[in-house]
Every structure is written in structure tokens, then in C-alpha cells.
């Protein structure tokens, strides 16, 4: 026994005969690698250099082969093991010994070393990695993570680094060595996966430490690694797995590339194209390799799935990048992959569920993306952002015949977005997309904070977005209420996350909470209360939820109420409860039975905190189920209750779905019943895929009044009286004389005009007029309607009103479409006309025209705020035309509140990036 030249360790007598294959990388590093190999404590049989380029200089005259296949062919039968080492690696003297020892101890077939950066000496490069089902590697390491021996645990991994790995000779012969076409990381993954499929055990032995100069990584394009991973996947999986992995993986890769393209990164898309092209070119070789592997395959793909992480690493990375960009703190950072986590999360169901969830929601909302948002009910575009914002901030509300009542905050949000984007057509789609993203991320993080992990979180997100409770928002097509779901869930999640310790993190978290609560309350003012109620309920019922969550819920509610304060300060309780969209909160017998089964079995049998989560969710949902027996769920109060139902069902479903095998047989069966019922609820929710609009009605109003532009060129008409069944009318309506109707601007219904205020003088006069028309008493309705600025009557499927209009003489019936009968008035019907007969035009929220000494009649409800020199003219307004401008004096308190709300929201946005800074 001789002393080792560089260490105090003696060279051990080898039990295994080992041949070393050095994969040549460059000239400069090779001597160092060879020296390190020579200095190994564990003895070797010899070294062969694999040099595809054939340009290396080996001072020691080791055998050199051109490819790994030649090396394998030349391996003698006396060789037991092969140590594959990169030519830029510096194995520590005991590295090989540790590999051999671990291989023997664990009966492994392939053992890899811990790889540490040779320059910094303490930065971890690899300590074995997992992959997702699509072949994306997931090391669990931070980019600059220092080796503090925190991962020094021997364990099974999906793959080990090809920088240093010890493999049995028979296995390396059976697998025909390393794929020469693949770059370093992909090659390691490929070889590891094939080894596992061949029945081998793949492990990492952190006690075997190798320094790596990373020369092999130089000049290796990212797309080559991507292409290599694709090839590895194509070789390793069975066809039945490839049948779904390839399309979904391609879709996810494409989504990722497109998203990154939108974020300004062009390269991912190029890499994807190159990688796919490369694989197409090399497909024959890949097929050959698959056939070769089939000869030695011992296990199914399930064995690969065991060592894969849930979900898509690519999408997780994308979400984190996006979140980082906006400073969100929604989901966990990729952390350390411990043995326990791997065992918990290593399941192939995750990516499938996540992909299915995304595909389901994408299909269920496809009408939102394929074209313009379907306009119906309360889902309408903002026609004039400035008017909407002014109306929210104390100005004139143009809805119907106008009023000083505030425009709903949701209209203000959309108006602000439209204003900021310059009226870009995709604005509402972006808002929808952000809300959906918030719903998915918020649901995931909310449930995780409540101890729910795994794929059920994705299923709960489906219920959040398109579920039974969500359908309530489709009753009257309340898109804004539906959009409140995402930020509401995100706000609740942010309330539940423990309060960070650093000041920066706290600022960032506060910013996130402000933004989420503000957005939720802007879409549905009741969301502020929902956040508070949910936090308090969870605090009271679920162990581990701290008092701080309720306190943060209170803070979020305060922020939400402040944001909605310009609206809330001016509306009455009746308006909050009796006007606005209707919500059908009573589930059918089937869904109700499923909910009850989930609740009963979930509370009775689910382990840990999860049964309390189900109980909390059940109670929140019960509020919504009770409510219709007390009052018709309508307006902002209805939206509040509907949101409670959604949050409740998310908690119930998210906590109940899961496969829990621990415990008594009866308990497992009970959990299974709860999980099945919850899954059935998800399945029922997925029925919205058929509709493609989340159950919302089909588009009814896009371009429907376009005829007014082409047929009414010579008219001064400002408004259209729309008559029809309530379900067909845009926004809110009035009913008189058995006829449902509403007044809309000539440009069509708009979100800012969707909700009607309490009837005023003009509304009552119009009501009488409509009754007269319905009663058949009026021969010249056009003349009477012109007083209201109404030049058109559009009748949708109301034959009785059409019949009534058929017996009048001053409105021409114009054929438009089968379901729409239109009457055009012979009379000029301006909204504002001066004594001189000159029609004044709108300029934002005011009227402008030639200055004159007379007066101007404004055919809006009489309200003293108009000026200059306002006088009441019957039910209308009359002001002086002397200035050439007529405007409504806004309510200054509401204007100040509106600015405050905007300020709070902007402050939240400003604070958001601090969370990122804190992380960095």
C-alpha cells in the first residue's frame, strides 16, 4: 500500500476494476483532469480519452478514441465499472472512492458526483436533479447557491451530471454509452433516464465532490440543450406517454416562448424553433435510439415519473419571472428539494392537472380571446373613458337620461385602462388575463398557506374561474364581478402569508395587498368585505392561521372601501341592493348534493387542517346559499355574496381533492368520497367549456346599433330607446306598462351607462311616454321622444311593442334584422339644442357650441349642478349659452375621494417592487 502523493490517504486496494473515460473538452484542462484522476485514492485500471475532434495533446499517451461507442466496444470483460469524467473536471482524490462505495451500498447502477464550480470553489453546480414530465430540468438550486453541505444526502434523482458519473460496465454497454449528439447537461439527463428505464438505480453521492471548470458549457447554445432534452424525452418515454406529453409539452413551450416574447425576450422563441427543427432533422436517429433502448427496457414510464416534479418547470419559471417583474409575492420561490418534498410532489399527475386546468379555462373563455369580448348584460365596453372617469369622480353620470349618481367603480377601472392604453382594442382582454392569472396564482398560494399542496390547487382554480359559484356572475353577464374573483383570492392569500421580517419585504407585501384589494373592490366593492370575512373565518376555524391574517384582512378591506368610496359615498343602501346585475346563487340539486357530500365527508375524514378548511369554505358558501331566501341577490350586495360563494367553494374543493392513503381504511374511503364529489364539482364546472364564455351570454351588442351611423346620417339624434325582454337589454332597464326598456347613447350601450340611477323627473316623464306608446294612444311618438333626445326606437323581439309602434305616423320602420325592428324618427332629437336651433355637441362630459345670448336646453334629468345659469325646464335643464360651454359642476368631495383612491392604487404599485428587492 503506497501513500497517495497529494493526500494523507492511502491508495486503497480496489474491489472493482474501473476504466475511466475522459470526455475531451479542450487542451488546456485535460492535463489537470488527468492529474486529478491519477491522484484518486481508489485505484483505476486505466484512462481512455474520448476525443471526437481528434485534436488533443495528451502528454501521458493515454489511449484516445474518437467516440464513446468505440470506448464501449473496447471495454474488456475484466472491467466492472466505468467512470465517465469531463475533461474540464477536477475530481477530489476521494471522489471515485465515494462513488464506488455508494454504488455498492445502494446497489445503484449509476451514481453521480456533487459538482462544484472550480472557480469559486463553493458554488454548487449540480447535486442531482429532478425533471418535470416534459423533460425540463429542475435542480432546486438558486443560481449562485453556495455549497454549505446542505444537500449532502444520498438519494435517488432523476438524473445526475455527466461531469462525473460512475456506471456499471454492463449498463454502459447495453445503453451504448452517452449520446454523442447531445450537449453536456442533456447528455447526462439522457443517459440517466435510459439507465433508469433499463432498470438501473440512479443516485447522487454528494460525498463525491468534483470541481468543474465549466469549459464544456462554453459555446453550447441554449437551443442545443433544449433540443437534447426533447430527444432524451422522445427516446425514453413509451409511445402512450409521448401521445400526451409531446402535444402538451409543445403547447406549454409555445406559450412560454410567446409570453417571454411579450416580456421582451426574443431568444426563447428562436430556441424553440431551432430545437424542434433539430429534432425533426434527427428524428430517424432518435427512432433508432428508441428501438435500441427497447431491447434493454425493464421498467415503465412510471419509474421516471417517480422522480419528476409536479407541474411544468417552464411555466413555473415563467410565472416567477412575470411575478418578479411585477414584484408579486404570490407563490413560493423554487426552493430546496428535500427528500420529503420529492416524495410528496413527485407524481406525474401535477403537470397533467395543471395543463388540463389551463386548457379547460382557455377553452371555457375562448370567446374572450378569439374576438371582441361578447357584449351583453353588464359586460359592455367603455365608450368614453373621460366621461366614465368623470362620472366616477363626482361628475355627470350619462346613464339613461343622466344623473349626478356615481358611475360604478368597475367602469372607472376599465375607463382608466382604456385611457392609459389609448383605447387599444385588447385592453379588456389584458384585464381579463390579469384577473385569471391572479385567480390561478391566488388560489394556489391561498390553499398552500392553508396546508393544501399538490394538484388539487389547480382544480380549485378551475372552480374559482368557471365553477358553480362563478356561474352566478353570468346570470346578468356581470364581467366586472367575475373579474373581482382573481384579485379577491390573491388578496386573501396575501393576508394569510406570514408577515415578512424585513422592512423592504413588508413594503412590497403591503403594495401587493393594496393592489389586489384595490383591484378587487374596484371590480366589485363588496370584495373588500369578502376579503375581511374570509380572513376572519379562516382565522377562527383553521389552526395555524394567525391573528395577523385577520388584521391584514381588515387593512385590505379598508383599502378596498377607500378605493370604492367615491361610489359608496353617494349611493343609497337601496341602490346597493336593488339595482345592478342579478345573481343566481342557488345551485341546482346536483351541484348542491355534491357540495354537501364534499362538506360532510371532507370535514369528517380529511386529515390535519384540511377538514377545517372545508368547514370554513362550507360556511362561506352557505352564506350565499342562504341569501336568496332573505333578499333577491342583486347589485353590489349580490356580487359580495356571490364572491363569498366562490371563495367558499374554492376552499372546499381545493382541500377535498387529493389521494390520502394514510389512516384507517374507513378514513381513506371517506376522503375518497369527498375527493370524488369535489372532482365531480370540477367536472361540472368544466361544462362551461361548451359555452366558451364562462356561461356568459353570447354577444348581443357589438355593432348592433351600427345602423344608426349608416341610416341616421341626417339626424341629430343622441339616444336610442331600446325595448325588449330584460335578458336582451344591455345593463339595467326599466319596466313600465308591461314593457322593459332603456335609453342608450347612439354609439351603443356602454359600461359607464350600464347601471341606471333612481328614476328622476325625466325618467318618470319617459315612463309615461312609453306607457302611452304601449297603450296605443300616441300617434306621433317620434315627436314626443325627440324631447328626450331619442331619435330611434330599437325593438328586440317584443311583438306587442312592435305592433304598438306600427300604428304611429312619425317614425319610419327600418328593416335591420330578423330580431331587431327599428324605427327612425322624422323629428330632430338632439340632446342639447340652443334657442337658435343650433345643436350643441358633446366634448367629454360637457356640451360645446357657438356662444349665443339665448339659452340651451339639455335633455337630461333636471339637476341644479348644470351651468352656467341653470334653470329647470320641466324635467330637463336649461342653461345659458353665453359661454359656448355647458357643464356639470362635479361633487368635490367625491372628486377628492377618487383622487385618493387613485393615489392609494399607485402607491401600491410603487411599493410592489420592494418585495423583489427584498428577495434579491
Amino acid at each position, binding site marked *: 500500500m503506497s501513500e497517495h502523493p497529494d493526500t494523507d490517504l492511502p491508495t486503497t486496494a480496489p474491489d472493482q476494476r474501473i476504466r475511466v473515460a475522459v470526455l475531451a473538452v479542450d487542451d488546456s484542462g485535460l492535463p489537470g483532469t488527468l492529474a486529478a484522476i491519477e491522484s484518486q485514492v481508489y485505484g483505476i485500471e486505466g484512462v481512455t480519452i474520448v476525443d471526437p475532434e481528434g485534436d488533443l495533446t495528451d502528454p501521458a499517451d493515454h489511449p484516445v478514441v474518437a467516440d464513446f461507442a468505440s470506448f464501449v466496444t473496447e471495454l474488456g470483460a475484466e472491467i466492472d465499472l466505468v467512470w465517465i469524467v469531463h475533461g474540464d473536471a477536477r475530481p477530489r482524490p476521494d471522489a471515485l472512492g465515494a462513488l464506488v462505495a455508494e454504488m455498492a451500498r445502494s446497489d445503484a447502477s449509476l451514481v453521480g458526483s456533487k459538482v462544484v464550480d472550480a472557480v469559486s470553489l463553493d458554488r454548487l453546480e449540480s447535486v442531482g436533479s429532478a425533471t418535470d414530465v416534459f423533460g425540463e430540468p429542475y435542480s432546486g438550486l438558486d443560481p449562485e447557491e453556495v455549497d454549505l453541505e446542505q444537500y449532502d444526502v444520498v438519494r435517488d434523482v432523476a438524473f445526475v451530471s455527466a461531469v462525473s458519473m460512475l456506471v456499471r460496465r454492463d449498463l454502459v454497454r447495453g445503453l451504448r454509452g452517452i449520446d454523442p449528439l447531445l450537449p453536456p447537461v442533456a447528455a447526462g439527463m439522457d443517459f440517466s433516464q435510459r439507465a433508469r428505464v433499463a432498470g438501473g438505480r440512479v443516485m447522487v453521492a454528494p460525498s463525491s465532490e468534483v470541481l468543474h471548470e465549466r469549459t464544456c458549457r462554453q459555446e453550447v447554445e441554449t437551443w442545443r440543450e433544449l433540443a437534447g432534452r426533447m430527444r432524451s424525452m422522445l427516446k425514453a418515454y413509451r409511445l402512450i406517454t409521448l401521445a400526451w406529453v409531446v402535444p402538451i409539452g409543445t403547447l406549454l413551450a409555445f406559450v412560454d416562448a410567446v409570453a417571454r416574447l411579450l416580456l421582451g425576450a426574443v431568444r426563447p422563441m428562436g430556441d424553440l424553433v431551432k430545437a424542434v427543427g433539430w429534432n425533426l432533422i434527427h428524428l430517424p436517429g432518435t427512432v433508432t435510439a428508441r428501438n435500441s433502448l427497447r431491447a434493454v427496457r425493464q421498467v415503465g414510464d412510471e419509474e421516471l415519473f417517480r422522480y419528476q416534479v409536479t407541474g411544468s418547470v417552464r411555466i413555473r419559471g415563467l410565472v416567477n419571472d412575470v411575478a418578479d417583474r411585477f414584484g408579486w409575492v404570490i407563490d413560493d420561490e423554487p426552493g430546496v428539494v428535500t427528500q420529503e418534498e420529492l416524495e410528496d410532489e413527485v407524481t406525474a399527475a401535477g403537470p397533467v392537472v395543471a395543463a388540463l386546468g389551463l386548457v379547460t379555462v382557455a377553452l371555457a373563455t375562448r370567446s374572450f380571446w378569439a374576438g371582441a369580448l361578447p357584449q351583453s348584460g353588464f359586460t359592455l365596453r367603455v365608450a368614453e373613458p373621460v366621461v366614465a372617469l368623470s362620472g366616477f369622480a363626482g361628475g355627470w353620470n350619462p346613464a339613461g337620461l343622466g344623473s349626478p349618481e356615481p358611475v360604478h367603480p368597475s367602469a372607472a377601472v376599465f375607463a382608466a385602462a382604456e385611457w392609459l392604453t389609448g383605447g387599444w382594442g385588447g385592453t379588456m382582454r389584458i384585464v381579463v388575463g390579469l384577473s385569471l392569472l391572479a385567480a390561478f396564482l391566488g388560489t394556489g398560494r391561498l390553499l398552500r398557506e392553508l396546508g393544501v399542496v399538490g394538484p388539487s390547487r389547480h382544480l380549485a382554480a378551475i372552480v374559482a374561474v368557471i365553477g358553480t359559484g362563478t356561474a352566478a356572475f353570468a346570470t346578468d353577464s356581470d364581467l366586472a364581478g367575475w373579474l373581482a374573483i382573481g384579485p379577491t383570492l390573491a388578496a386573501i392569500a396575501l393576508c394569510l402569508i406570514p408577515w415578512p421580517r424585513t422592512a423592504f419585504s413588508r413594503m412590497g407585501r403591503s403594495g401587493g395587498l393594496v393592489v389586489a384589494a384595490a383591484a378587487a373592490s374596484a371590480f366589485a366593492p363588496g370584495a373588500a368585505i369578502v376579503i375581511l370575512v374570509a380572513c376572519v373565518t379562516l382565522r377562527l376555524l383553521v389552526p395555524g392561521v394567525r391573528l395577523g391574517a385577520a388584521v391584514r384582512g381588515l387593512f385590505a378591506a379598508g383599502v378596498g372601501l377607500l378605493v370604492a368610496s367615491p361610489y359608496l359615498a353617494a349611493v343609497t343602501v337601496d341602490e346597493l341592493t336593488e339595482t345592478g346585475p342579478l345573481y*343566481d346563487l342557488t345551485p341546482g340539486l346536483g351541484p*348542491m348534493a355534491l357540495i354537501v357530500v364534499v362538506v360532510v365527508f371532507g370535514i369528517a375524514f380529511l386529515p390535519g387542517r384540511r377538514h377545517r378548511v372545508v368547514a370554513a369554505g362550507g360556511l362561506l358558501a352557505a352564506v350565499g*346559499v*342562504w341569501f*336568496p331566501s332573505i333578499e333577491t341577490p342583486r347589485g353590489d350586495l349580490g356580487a359580495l355574496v356571490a364572491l363569498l360563494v366562490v371563495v367558499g367553494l374554492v376552499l372546499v374543493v381545493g382541500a377535498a381533492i387529493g389521494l390520502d392513503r394514510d389512516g384507517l381504511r374507513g378514513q381513506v374511503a371517506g376522503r375518497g368520497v369527498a375527493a370524488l364529489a369535489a372532482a365531480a364539482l370540477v367536472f361540472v364546472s368544466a361544462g362551461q367549456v361548451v359555452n366558451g364564455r364562462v356561461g356568459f351570454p353570447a354577444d348581443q351588442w357589438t355593432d348592433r346599433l351600427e345602423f344608426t351611423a349608416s341610416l341616421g346620417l341626417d339626424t341629430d339624434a343622441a339616444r336610442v330607446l331600446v325595448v325588449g325582454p330584460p335578458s336582451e337589454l344591455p345593463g339595467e332597464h326599466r319596466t313600465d306598462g308591461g314593457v322593459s326598456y332603456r335609453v342608450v347613447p347612439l354609439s351603443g350601450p356602454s359600461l359607464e351607462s350600464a347601471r341606471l340611477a333612481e328614476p328622476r323627473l325625466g325618467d318618470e316623464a319617459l315612463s309615461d311616454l312609453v306607457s302611452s306608446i304601449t297603450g296605443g294612444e300616441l300617434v306621433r311618438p317620434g315627436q314626443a321622444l325627440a324631447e328626450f333626445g331619442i331619435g330611434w326606437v330599437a325593438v328586440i323581439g317584443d311583438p306587442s311593442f312592435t305592433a304598438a309602434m306600427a300604428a*304611429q305616423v312619425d*317614425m319610419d*320602420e327600418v328593416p335591420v334584422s330578423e330580431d331587431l325592428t327599428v*324605427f327612425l324618427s322624422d323629428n330632430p332629437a338632439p340632446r342639447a339644442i340652443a334657442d337658435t336651433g343650433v345643436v350643441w355637441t358633446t366634448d367629454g362630459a360637457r356640451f360645446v357650441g357657438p356662444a349665443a345670448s339665448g339659452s340651451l336646453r339639455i335633455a337630461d334629468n333636471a339637476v341644479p349642478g348644470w351651468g352656467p345659469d341653470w334653470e329647470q325646464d320641466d324635467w330637463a335643464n336649461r342653461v345659458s349659452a353665453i359661454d359656448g360651454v355647458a357643464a356639470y359642476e362635479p361633487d368635490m368631495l367625491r372628486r377628492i375621494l377618487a383622487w385618493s383612491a387613485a393615489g392609494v392604487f399607485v402607491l401600491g404599485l410603487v411599493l410592489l417592487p420592494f418585495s423583489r428587492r427584498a428577495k434579491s
Partner: protein
Amino acid sequence: MTRAVLVVVVTAALVGGWLLAPVATPTADVPGLEPAAPAAAVCPIRLDRTADGKLTVGSTQIAPTRITVGNAGLTATDQTVDVDEAGGAAVQFADLTTGGAAGAFVEFGVPAAAAAAVSRGEAGVTGVSCPSLLRTTSLIAGASTRNGESLELVLVNPYGSDAVVAIASSSEIGPDSAEELSAVVVPARSTVTRNLSGLLPLRNRLSLAISPVRGYVHAFVEGAGRGDRVVIEHVLPRNEWVSPVPSFDGQEGFIVVATASPVEVVVRVDGWSDGAFLEGVFAAVIPPRGQLEIPFAELDTDLDIVRILADGPVGVSVVVEGEAGRGATPANTEAFPEWLMPGPGSAGSVAWVGVPGEVDAIVEFLSLASGGESFVVNVPAGTVTAVPLADQLVGYTVRSDSPITVLWSVSDENGIGLGAPTPIPGGE
């Protein structure tokens, strides 16, 4: 234990709430109230070298009346006439149209108002009470397309919507109709005519049922030939009609009953003769969508007043024909104490006043012309009195202390025109 409590509480909350939730009941389609007819009427006006006339308006209050005449979708004439304190106004046809057949749309300023059109000329004399809007199937009874006669259907659509009407006809040979009449399109603000004597020739008695398919029209028939012209307006079918029997020397009188009912209709005629009420002087069955002509001469008794009762809706016209000319008008739907009677007042005008009751009536004729003469007539119960009317151009308001039935006629050497006044329900 905690789990059990939670299960009970949460489940009870969910199930209880669900059970208490109001059951959504499907909302039944509540039929809307039948729209009222607007305070307006349409008068058939014809101006040619053989005929001129005047349109007269009677009203219970002072109010401006707007008269428009549509032509090919446009408003050709639009003028407003003032009803004076006497309640009447008159406009010559020549002021409304330049020629041909047209319909004048008369918008009354008040609900209690009526209009009539009287035409005189070499070709004959006509009188017609201008009908207001009829929204359902209406009937015209008593026309004819005998040899030597022409008959034209005049459909007036003064409204803003195009109209389509389906017209069925019946004659002495039963329901018979022309395909060309199954769907007649009448454009907005237009008048459309159809030559019935060409489409349905040689009918001794011809009745029409006019059914609106979409939109509305005002329908008339205008007959000519045999020395006189006749205009009959459409009416809504009813189960009961009443009318005085006008008698002209040498003229025959008829009642023509028509129905649009798809089933047989049993008709009974009662009457008053010399003050006595005679029940069931005639009875017959009208075939589905058929008509029935009842000559007064064939009734056993000379009746002063007739009352037609039917077990289905029918339309009834009173027709007089003879050497002096021919006239026809729908009968009264019931007896009223007060009538607006624009139209008569020119030379040869007579009001036929019957009292279908047991109490004599004191009937007051109030001229609709300013400065016109008003007078009182006593009409015995169960009789009819022919009241000659002074030449006051406009017409009268007829008031009685008991319900009366009234027709009016205008006649001269060129012919006879018959018309029916408009009742004022409840009086004004």
C-alpha cells in the same frame, strides 16, 4: 366531537339555505293590454272630374285637428284645421289631394271626436264615417260586383310601418277569394287599391274579411255603376248590432251579415215595429266565413228598428238600393244616448233616429257649425223618425235622454249616401 359539530353546523347551513331559497318559477307570458285606438281616423277621399266632397270633423272640445295625406311613403299634405267652439270643422277634398283615391289621416286633438267624408258628383253620392284604427280582423259587408258595377278595394296605410293584410271574401256562393288578395302589401304612408270587380266579378253580395298580418290598414270598398257610387268602411265584428231602418221611396233595403268565424254562426233578427218589440222575426245560420243577405221586404213585418244577435262575431251593413241610387253603411253596434254626427248637413241630409226601447226619447240636434241651428225632436219608443237636417255644412251632435240608434243619409238627384255617426260613450 369538533368534527361532528362542524359537519352538523355547516351541512345544516348549506341545506337549510338551499331549501329556503325561493323556487324560481317560470314567468308566464302575461298578455299585454290590448292597445287602444289612437284618437285618429282615416277618411277615404276621391277627387276626380265626377266627384268632389268634403271631410268634416266633429269634436266635443275645441282642439286643433291635423290632417295628413300620405302618398308613396311621403306625407303629401299636412294641414291643421281648428275645431271651433261649436265642435266642427270641414275641409274640401280639393284642399287635401290633387286627384284620385287617397286616405286622409285625421288626428283629433281630443279622444271624443269623429270624422266623416261626403262626396257628391255626377257619378253619385257617398257618405262614410271615417274609421279609427282596427287592430284585428275587420269586416266589410254589403258590397257587390254585379254586372254594370265596379268595385274597388281601397287600403290606406297612413303609418310609418309597411303593412301586409290578408283578405278573404265571401259571396252568395259561399267563401270565395282571390289569390291576389291573400297577402296585399301596403307600404307606409301609401294607399293601395285592388279592382274587386275584376278579381271577383258578378257577385250579387260580396263581403270581405281583412286580417292584418303585420302593420295596420284602414279598409274601404268604393263601388260605382248603376247610377250611383257607394263607399263602405270596415268594422270590427261583434255579436250584436242595432240600426234604424231607413226608408226611401222606391228603394229596397237589406241587412247584410258577414262573418270571418271559422264555424257556423247562428243569427237572429229582432225588431221594433210601431213601438212594439218583436223577438225573433228572422233566424238563419251563416256558414263559416260566409255571409247572409236579409231583404227587409222578406221579413214578415215592416220593421222600424232591427237588432241582430249572433252567437259569433259578425259584421252588419244596412244597404238601400233602387232607382234613386244606392247606399250602404255599417249598422250601429249598440244604442247610445249621445252621438257625434259629422257629415250630414248639406242639402238632402236626413238623420234616421230610432228608439230601441220602451220610453220615448227627446233628441236634441246641436249643430257642429258656428251659428248653426239646433233643434229638438221627440221620437216615440220603438219607432224611427227621419229628421231632415238643415244645410249647415258640418254636421251635428245628437243627444238624447235615452239610448237611440242613428244613421244619416245624404241624397240628391245623383244618388244616396248612407253613414253612421260615432257614439260618445258616457257622454261628454
